[in-house]
């Protein structure tokens, strides 16, 4: 299990390596990538992420443990980026390994759904032309 928050570009391979193991036949990963969205405010040029690291990491660990209990056993790794992410860059990466694929898919989808609701991270959309706006996730 590996949980990280930081400014470096995200790589999926180390997360896969962190969850792989001889008992796990299925590895599912999720990458959230900054899209070139056309909002009413303008064209998104970058998203700037900010985290309350201590709280965010403890909630990421809790989500990983829940995913393993509910769908697994599964091994979970989650990394979230801070700072500016340009279009095409990943802001979040999750890897889940489980014995079989249904559990790995379910646990990975659970992890990203819960992360969006519960992890202390915020994003600011920066638009071409200089405007910016804090953008919360939609309530589920």
């Amino acid at each position, binding site marked *: 299990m590996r949980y990280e928050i930081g400014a470096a570009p995200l790589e999926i391979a180390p997360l896969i390596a962190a969850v792989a193991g001889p008992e796990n036949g299925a590895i599912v990963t999720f990458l*959230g990538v900054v899209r070139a969205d056309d909002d009413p405010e303008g064209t998104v040029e970058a998203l700037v*992420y*900010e*985290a*309350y690291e*201590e*709280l*965010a990491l*403890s*909630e990421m660990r809790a989500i990983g443990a829940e995913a393993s209990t509910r769908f697994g056993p599964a091994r979970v790794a989650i990394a*979230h980026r801070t700072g500016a992410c340009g279009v095409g860059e990943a*802001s*979040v990466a999750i890897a889940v390994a489980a014995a079989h694929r249904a559990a790995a898919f379910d646990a990975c989808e659970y992890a*990203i759904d819960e*992360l*969006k*609701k*519960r*992890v*202390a*991270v*915020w*994003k*600011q959309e920066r638009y071409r032309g200089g405007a910016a706006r*804090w*953008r*919360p*996730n939609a*309530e589920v």
Partner: protein
Amino acid sequence: MTVRLLAFAGLRDVLGGPKRELSVADGATLADLWAELVRARPQFGPLEGSTRFALNGRLVARDATLAEGDEVALMPPFGGG
């Protein structure tokens, strides 16, 4: 007694910075602290329903009681992912 405030994202702009110290009465709760903030800056008022609180790095309800030196985080709705 004195507590340390942290504010994130849009709430940082309302607080006027990422960190502040605030004096509160002995035995004050987070709800009392919030009322204090709203008195000082009325812009906090409409944000009450959407703000979440953490006390020393843990999410808490607003009836949590404060102690000298506590770190209180003011958090708007999350936007990670």
